[in-house]
């Protein structure tokens, strides 16, 4: 039931290139050369405006939750479904939907934007709402320190005409909000002192704000337990189901609820939003449990030191079958060293092209590493051939590159959620 789309008309010859490239960026590249204003004019043309989600970590989950919340309110939403958080990929995603008249069906657009690329293309965009997740030390080769990330997010936030939604616990973002010179008002979300105290290492932000947001200040996370959480909003408490264990998923849900509230205004209904964000399926590779070769296996994706620490801390203690695989996407393995991995206790196999580097860190953290096997395919085969563990579940902790290779090796659907 696909409408006849621009991509077929305009870029038919590059469809083969698309599959060869393993992504959706090629037709977008072509159109960006043919009609450079296309992206901005379509994105700025939605009747209920454009919402941008950006920040260091949690963008994909937050975007998905936000889209679910908006759709539950009856809003027709266009969003970038795949790993299309760069401009070529974004154009390709639009081409899938746009008709020959250049119109696109939908009331509102919700886009996940990488903070780097977002700053590059956002000068032409006019978002109504910009929701910012956090500032963490992330992708250190590209954004060499958190100051640069804050500057890029500020450029995106200054484009907002309606509301900038910020994490009140992240001091980089509260500072950014104070310096905004655009027309937007600020909306906040945050956690209680009790929730913060349950995470003695903090929530992973480069700078944590010294004070907690009062209940009247916005959307407040009051408790997290396993896959359940509670939020307080306009004096009423609501329960949430999270896509996986971990306080960071609860904060993603909080971001999505606060952004939905900003985007919907009077139409916002807290109960509808909370029940919608609770329905999203587990994100691939982040606490996802799959059955492979007759065994249940939990996949845990670590994208930066903060998510590594939060994931290690939220794993069930005493797991006796853990594989850790770090690939070439981690250009400089130094940056994982602020993470305390000692809670892992024992790792059966360290793998990936950075197998020795991660094994070295584990060894200094007092973790027993039984085997170092840089060949990920062999490591996976041997790991999965072991009988089911006595305690817990087979657990594979991997970087994004190792995740893609793992999924390919095991014949699982590729991760389209980036």
């Amino acid at each position: 039931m696909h409408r006849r789309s621009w991509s077929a008309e305009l870029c038919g010859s590059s469809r083969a290139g698309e599959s060869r490239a393993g992504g959706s960026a090629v037709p977008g590249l072509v159109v960006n050369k043919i009609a450079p204003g296309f992206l901005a004019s379509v994105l700025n043309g939605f009747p209920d405006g454009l919402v941008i989600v950006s920040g260091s970590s949690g963008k994909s989950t937050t975007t998905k939750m936000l889209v679910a919340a908006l759709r539950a309110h009856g809003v027709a939403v266009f969003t970038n479904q795949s790993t299309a958080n760069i401009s070529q990929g974004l154009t390709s995603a639009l081409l899938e939907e746009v008709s020959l008249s250049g119109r696109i069906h939908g009331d509102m657009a919700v886009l996940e934007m990488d903070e780097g690329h977002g700053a590059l293309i956002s000068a032409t965009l006019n978002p109504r709402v910009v929701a910012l997740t956090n500032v963490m030390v992330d992708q250190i080769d590209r954004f060499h320190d958190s100051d640069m990330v804050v500057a890029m997010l500020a450029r995106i936030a200054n484009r907002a005409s309606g509301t900038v939604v910020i994490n009140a616990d992240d001091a980089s973002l509260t500072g950014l909000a104070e310096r905004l010179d655009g027309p937007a008002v600020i909306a906040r979300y945050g956690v209680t002192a009790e929730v913060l105290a349950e995470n003695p290492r903090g929530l992973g932000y480069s700078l944590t704000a010294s004070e907690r947001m009062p209940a009247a200040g916005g959307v407040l996370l009051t408790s997290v337990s396993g896959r359940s959480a509670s939020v307080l909003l306009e004096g009423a408490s609501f329960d949430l189901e999270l896509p996986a264990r971990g306080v960071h998923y609860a904060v993603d849900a909080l971001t999505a609820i606060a952004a939905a509230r900003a985007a919907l205004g009077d139409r916002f209904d807290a109960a509808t939003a909370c029940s919608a964000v609770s329905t999203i399926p587990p994100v691939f590779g982040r606490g996802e449990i799959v059955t492979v070769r007759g065994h249940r296996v939990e996949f845990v994706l670590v994208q930066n030191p903060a998510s590594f620490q939060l994931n290690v801390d939220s794993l069930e203690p005493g797991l006796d079958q853990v594989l850790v695989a770090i690939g070439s996407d981690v250009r400089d393995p130094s940056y994982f060293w602020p993470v305390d991995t000692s809670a892992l206790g024992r790792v059966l196999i360290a793998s990936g092209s950075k197998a020795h580097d991660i094994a070295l860190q584990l060894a200094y953290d007092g973790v027993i590493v039984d085997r170092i096997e840089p060949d990920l395919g062999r490591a996976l085969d041997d790991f999965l051939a072991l009988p089911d563990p006595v305690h817990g579940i087979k657990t594979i902790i991997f970087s994004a590159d190792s995740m893609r290779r793992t999924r390919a090796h095991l014949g699982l659907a590729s991760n389209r959620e980036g």
Partner: protein
Amino acid sequence: MRALTILSVLPELLDTNGDAANARVLAQRARWAGFEATIVPVRSLDDLPSKVDAIVIGSGNDSDLLEARDLLAPLVNALRAWTTAGVPVLAVGTGWELLSWGIELPDGTVVEGLGLVAGRAVPLAVRATDDLVVESPFGRLVGFENHARSYVGAEASVLGRVLSGMGNGAKTEGLRMGSFLGTHLHGPVLARNPGLADHILSAAVTRAGGVYVRSERAADVDAIAEAATDVVVSALSLTADS
């Protein structure tokens, strides 16, 4: 022998690349060799213990240069006394630069340093972000550099010769003055380069009244480090273990 005391200076502000991990590396190697070791995080004068056996300072964000310098300033007399007395110091990146004569910024302004060691940091035309391999008296050193300044004025007292990468510029890397070592090799340089770690640890253990001998556990872990650094060196087409 008394327990070893390892200072980790400004571990929150100066840990951008995991450099504070170097204190953890020294403490673990000491424990594996049968010694007790304590890491003391230092944020102000009040945190300074009476006896110190090794000092580790990491690298931070440029926007924190003045704050870090002002926090280090009250500590510098104690650092000078310990350095003069032979306490080993490892200073990485901006932590090292702040203890020099000063840091020149691209706009021409200068962040005055604390003058503990000779030399100054001056802007590079292009940021150096890549593997860095150095030939040194402590063996081949392999790590990662990510900095926007070279280091001049201490060419006679370098840590080693650059085999690949930028280092100080002019094919040299780091600073070695008495027991003070400065380097651009960021992150867990002591884990990846156990020869350098054991040079520092031997000096620390000797000060505490013991004799350091590398443990079997450390030898096993060092084999992992060697494999990790060999991957880098072979990718650069340098001769392995030159």
